[in-house]
Every structure is written in C-alpha cells, then in structure tokens.
C-alpha cells in the first residue's frame, strides 16, 4: 500500500517562477471596445490592413458566445475588467541588449532564459515577450545570414508586412472560435519566423512568454512560415507570478509548412496554476494550428502542460498536402484543483497523409484532466493513416481522467486506430524499486518519467531534461 502520510510529508516545492518584477509599466485603461483596439493598433504603428483585421475580428467576437462544451467550471471572465495592453517602459528604440532595462534582463536571467551575452553560448535564439511586448530577440544577425527572419510580430508587421498580410489569419481565421476572435482583435505581440526555401534553421528558435502584471491579459500571436524544403525547431516556454486573481491568456499560433518543409513546435507550459485551494492561476485558452500545405510537409507538436488553472488547448494539423505528416505528443499533468482539457485535431484532407497522436495525462489531487481529440478522414484522403494512443495515470482517488476521442471517416481506403488506457502507479513496481534501495519519491518520479517517455523522447534536448525535472517537482507531495 502506498504510504499516504509519507507521501504527503514530502516537502512541496513552491512555484519558483512566482515572483513579480517591480518595473514601471505603461498600461492602457481597462475594458474592451473599438477605441481600445484602435489605441493598441496606434501604439504599435500598424498599417491599415491590420487595424481592419482587428476590428473585423472584434465585431465577430461580439456576436460569439463563450464556449461551454468542455464543461470547465471556472468563474465567469469579465472581459471589461482586463487591461489589454501593458508594456514595460523603456527607451524608444533598442539597438542592442545593453539598452534593455537591467531589471528585465535580471528577470529573464532568474527564469533561466539566455538573453545575456554569456548565456548566448547555449545556441538557442530567444524572443522574450514580457506582458504585451517583445523585449529582445537574440541571434538575429546570425540567423539573418541564413535568410531566416526571427523577430517579434510587431517588427514583422513593420518590416515584412507583405508576409503578414499574406499569411496572418489563414490558418486560424478570426471567426474560428471565441478566444481566437478575441486574440485577433487585441493581440499585442508574439513571434514571427520565416524560413526561406531550402534552409535548415541553424539553431533552435525559442520564445519565452512572461506575464508580470496581475490585471492584464496576455494575447500573443505566433506565425511561423516554412518555405519549400526548409526546416525549423521552435520552443516555447511560459511562466507568470503568483496572484490571487485569475489572469487570462488567449494566444493564437499559426504554422504553415510548404512542400517538403518541416516544423517542430515544442511547448513547456508552466503558467502559475493557482494555490491548493484553487485561488489564482492563469486561464489558458490557446488556439494552435498548423497547415501542411505542401507535399510531404510535416508539422510536429510536442507539449508538456503542467501549469495554468484552466487549460483549453488543442494543437491541430490540417493535412492538405499529399503525403503530409502531422504529429502530436503531449504530457499533461494536473494537480490540486487544476483543470486541463487538451488534445488535438488531425484533419486528413489530402491523400496518403499520416498522423500520430500520443497523449499522456497524469491527474493528481482534485484535478480534472481530459483528452479531447478529433481525427477526421475526408473524402479525398485515400491511403491515409492515423494512430492514436491516449494513456492516463491517476494519482489518488479524487482526481479525474477523461478521454473523449471523436473519430470520423468518410474514406474507406484509410485506416484509423485509437487506443486508450487508464492506470495508476503500480504498487508492485513501486515495491520493486524501493526494495532496491530507491527512495520513495525517486521511485514515483522514475515511474512517471517512464510513463511519459514516449513524449519526452520527442522533445528537444534542452526541454526534455527540464520537463522531466518539472514533472518530478510538480508531483511532490501529491502521491498517496
């Protein structure tokens, strides 16, 4: 029998990213209306097409209803009580990292993000987003040598407006869903990546999202375009301070892969999840979608979801190109009163398309962890295949693990396989490990790590180790 007391006595690791940076910020008034949207657009000196895009999205959002099908029980969000633009005050133009407010650099330093020169050696280019704006992007010159554009989306709007106008909203249209419409209306910053034809991005690209103020939401937008025969690996991380109030995070990520291009998008989401009583925490409503437009293109999503009070996230792939490939690898861990409703959508449109889904859910405490996915074979998806595997692990008898796979096929010459299972930490395995002198906590953490291995293997090296550690920390004190 798992010793409950022993487990509960394990010292809990506090949320170590929960500090607030004391910095002067520029905020606009609370509330959401056309004037606010115009103001955001004006502050960012945007061209007319983008303002029109925002206003159109806002009109659509006003007519939409907040979705309730996931059955997530969270308190009503007052959209008029949110600040939609908040940015740290700094000099007008930053030409080098030396000009960034040292406090900001210190913040990212504390978070372990390599912005400063000596840490640049890690060979990962970073775009750091603080509240509503991008603070800095590293390795830009090196990347530019290869023709890779990696900058904040605000800069891209100014410098590469043709690309933005061509691709923005083509994967996730403004009317896609309630939160995507909201994001399209008020998005403040995010990252933009363009990989030219035939280029394999020389280093991993990464963006780091930090929410610092408690009363403002974060609405970032990411757009990645991989031209023919190019490839890129993109990492995303996020943290926020601990506040008693809930903060809204509604992001949109759009990926476009042309012929033979490949995009790997990895996320470690560690937003503040609220305390044990469920007070505070981030409401994370994210729309992520990739379009495999070209032949033999590939989009791979891998995610480790450990934070947020509410997670509502379904990274999807539209497989249009012949023989295109979509992948989704996910570990979602919920503890205390967290609720995660996450999964994927694999829409097979083109012939001979393939998709793989591996989802691992771990629920502890009083949390609810659901996998919700859709696999659809369209009428033209001849010779297409899908394989899905969804495993859940329950820790304690108060947590809930749900699996809701929707499978739809209109193509007889295609194959869909789905399997799901639920288990708990096996007492036999635990006993075996303990009898070999392995500490209880370590044994649990080893077993959880083994359970998630299929997914961790897909993460880039830097993330895999971090994810493993993160999971072990999050689980401390919850087994029993």
């Amino acid at each position: 029998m798992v010793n409950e007391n022993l487990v509960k006595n394990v010292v809990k690791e506090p949320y170590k990213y929960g500090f607030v940076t004391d910095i002067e910020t520029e905020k606009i008034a609370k509330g959401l209306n056309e004037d606010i949207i115009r103001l955001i657009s004006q502050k960012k000196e945007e061209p007319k097409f983008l303002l029109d895009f925002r206003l159109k999205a806002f009109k659509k959002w006003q007519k939409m209803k907040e979705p309730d099908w996931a059955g997530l029980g969270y308190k009503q969000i007052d959209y008029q009580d949110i600040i939609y633009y908040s940015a740290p005050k700094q000099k007008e133009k930053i030409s080098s990292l030396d000009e960034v407010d040292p406090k900001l650099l210190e913040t990212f330093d504390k978070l372990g993000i390599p912005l400063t020169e000596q840490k640049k050696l890690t060979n990962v280019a970073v775009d750091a987003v603080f509240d509503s704006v991008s603070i800095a992007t590293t390795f830009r010159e090196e990347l530019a040598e290869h023709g890779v554009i990696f900058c904040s989306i605000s800069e891209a709007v100014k410098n590469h407006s043709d690309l933005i106008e061509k691709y923005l909203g083509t994967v996730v249209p403004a009317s896609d869903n309630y939160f995507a419409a909201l994001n399209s209306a008020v998005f403040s910053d995010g990252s933009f990546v363009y990989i030219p034809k035939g280029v394999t991005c020389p280093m991993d690209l990464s963006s780091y999202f930090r929410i610092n103020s408690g009363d403002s939401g974060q609405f970032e937008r990411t757009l990645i375009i991989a031209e023919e025969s190019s490839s890129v690996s993109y990492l995303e991380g996020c943290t926020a301070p601990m506040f008693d109030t809930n903060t809204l995070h509604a992001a949109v990520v759009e990926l476009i892969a042309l012929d033979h291009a490949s995009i790997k998008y990895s996320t470690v989401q560690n937003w503040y999840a609220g305390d044990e009583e469920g007070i505070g925490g981030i409401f994370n409503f994210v729309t992520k979608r990739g379009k495999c437009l070209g032949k033999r293109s590939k989009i791979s999503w891998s995610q480790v979801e450990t934070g947020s009070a509410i997670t509502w996230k379904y990274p999807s792939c539209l497989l249009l190109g012949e023989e295109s490939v979509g992948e989704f690898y996910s570990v979602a861990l919920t503890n205390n009163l967290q609720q995660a409703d996450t999964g994927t959508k694999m829409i097979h449109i083109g012939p001979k398309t393939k998709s793989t889904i591996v989802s691992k859910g771990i629920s502890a405490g009083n949390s609810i962890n659901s996998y919700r996915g859709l696999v659809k074979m369209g009428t033209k998806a001849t010779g297409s295949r899908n394989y899905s595997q969804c495993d859940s692990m329950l820790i304690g008898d108060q947590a809930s693990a749900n699996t809701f796979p929707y499978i739809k096929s209109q193509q007889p010459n295609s194959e869909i396989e789905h399997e799901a299972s639920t288990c708990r930490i096996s007492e036999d395995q635990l006993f075996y490990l303990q009898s070999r002198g392995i500490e209880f906590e370590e044994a649990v953490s080893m077993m959880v790590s083994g359970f998630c291995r299929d997914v961790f293997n897909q993460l880039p090296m830097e993330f895999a180790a971090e994810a493993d550690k993160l999971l072990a920390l999050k689980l401390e004190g919850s087994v029993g």
Partner: protein
Amino acid sequence: MEIIEKIKTNKSIDNLTEIQKICLDKLQASPLPNPKSEQWRLSNKSKFSNFLNYSVNEKKSKFDTPFPNTSQSTIRLVIGDNCQINFIEENYSIKQLSEDKLVKYIKEQISCFDKNENWSDLLNLSLNCTKNILGLKINGSEIPPIEIFSHASINSLNAKTLVIFLEKNCNIDLLQVNLGKDNSSLSQSTFVCLEENSSVNHGVVSYGENKSNLLNSLNVIQQNNSEYNLGSLHFKFNYARFEIRIKQSKGNAKTNIKGMQITKKDEQISTFTKIDFHGPNGFLDQINKSLADDKSHAIFEGSIIVPKIAQKTDASQLSRNLLLSNLAQIDTKPQLEIIADDVKCKHGATISQLNEEELFYMRTRGITLTEASKLQLSSYFQEIISFIPVSKDRWDLLDKLLNEN
C-alpha cells in the same frame, strides 16, 4: 409540440394513463431533444422528423413472426397481444407484473430521467397505453428460452414497452425481436432489472423493411453478482437509434456486450451506450461493430463512467468499423470518465475496409472476390451473432445477413 398534440388527440386511446400524463408533462418542457447535445448531435434531422411524422393511431395488422416456433419449450410472447401470462412450473414461474407494481416501477425510473438522454423513453411512455406495456416477473431455474416480439404497423408510429424483473438466482435466455414494417416507426423501450446472482443472455435483433424507423432504448439495472450478456444486431432501417444504459448499482457485477449495426443505401443507424459503475469490482467487456456501405452513416458513442466508489473496476470497450464505400461515413466516439484510481479501463477504435491481404490470399487460392468478401464478412459478423441466444436451426442470422448484404 406537434408530437404532443398528436398524442393528446389520439383517438385510439380513451383516457391518458397516469404515466402518460407525467411523461407528456416532461416532454412539454423539451418537446424535441436538443440537437446540439452530444447524444443527438449526429442524428439526421430530416430522418428524425420523418420518424415522428407518422400517425400515432394504432391500426390492427397481421403479424408474422420471422421464423417458426419449432420448439415446444420456447415461450413466445408478442407485446400488445393482450393475453394473460402465467407460467408456473415446478422449477420456475413467469408472471405478469400487476399494474400497481408496474406503474410504481416506471414512475421511479421516470424520476431519474434526463430530458436529452432519456428522451426516447419519455416519448415511448407518453405514446403508450397500458395494453402495449408488458411487465414480467421471472424466478426459478431451468427456464425455457423466451422470445418477445415488437412490431409497428404500416404507416404509423407505435410504441411498445417491456419491463422484466429477474428475481434472485434466476438464469434466462431472452430474445427480443423488433420488426419494422414498410413506412413505419417503432418506439421500443425495455427495462431489465437483475437481482442478486441472476443472469440473462439477452439478444436484441432489430430489422426493418423499406423506410422503417426505430427508436430502441434499453435500460438495465444490475445488482450484486449478476451477469448481463447482450448480443444485438440492427439492420435495414432507414433511421434507427439503439440506446443502451446499464447501471451496476452496487458493483460486483459482470456485463458483456457485443453489438453490431449494418447500414446500406442512405440509412442511418446509431448506437449509444452508457455504462455506469456504482460500486466496486465491476466488469465490462464491450465490442461494437459497424459496417457502412453505399451512402449510409453508422454512429457509435459509448461512455464508461467510473466514479470514486467503483474501485477495482475492469472495463474495456472496443469499436470496430468497416467502411465499404466512398460515400458512406462512420463516426465513433468511445469515452472514458474515470475518478477511481485502482481501475483497469481501456478502449480502442478502428476504422478500415476489408483486409486487402486476406482478400488477395483467398483469391490466389481460386476464391472469387465476391466469395472472399463474403467469407471475410461472415467472420466479422460471426463474433456477434454467436453471442445472440438463438439457435441456428431456428433462425440462421448469418445467412440472413450475408444474403441481404
């Protein structure tokens, strides 16, 4: 609202019964199921409104059973026949439930109805006068197989209700046959209550004729140590829904379900199952097969609910589907909702067409493509058909399926 008016002005019923009144009241609040609800989302709206379109006045029609009763020992009943049932033998007794008990039981059931989930039962009980409700109380052992028939008459919407109480330590083989006639709609609701240590091998075979429709709802409550085995087969309906709700009220019970639905032309047949474990040590083994051809649509939605109390539950659910045409479609959604941690639960789903390698193998051995496909289909069907309690010499279901498909 139209259906409620139709029931209220039904000339063949003199007075509405108490149950009809209660159900009509409930239906008044939701005259039609919510098309956005998970249970009704995929239901074809025009086919469903066609289901409700027929006259609710019952017409007398001749009824022929699909196979002769060759065995003297088999008990054969037709719902609506109005004959008094009272079989008392040395080892067993089959009695008709008294009206009071029947009304009391149905009222208890109605009190737990959900307006979307049990909409089919509400409609059934609103339509039904006493003569089309058959209530049986069975006890004893070595009970002969029981066959119960329901049918709808041409150009009408008829409802039939069956309530069966199996007392302690009782084992039976029960075959329920629902027959649809040309241009007809049948609403069949069945309530089965298994007491401790009882077991039933339940077969449900539903098939229709041209443009017949069916709403078939099955509600089962299992007590401790009971075993419920269900084999079901639905085919040849323009529109059919089979709703299975099983509740293991105290756990320690066993449920085996093997179901199949076959759709052709532009038919739509759907199966919804909800298995609720309300106690520890429950067991479920479920397989649902669909075959969709031409422009048809087959749907399966199954949910397994394991609350905290249901520790040591062992449940598995498998949905296997064959899609044989470019214009047909299959939707499947197996679901798990689990809170208890010491459980073994799994589900799986596959959609594909006939195995090409197997077909090729058979053809290299001189078997024609048609024959080879038939052989494959027969092995696909056989797993389910062998689970339905009807002997081959009386009714060869496999033969019937292969010849009609």
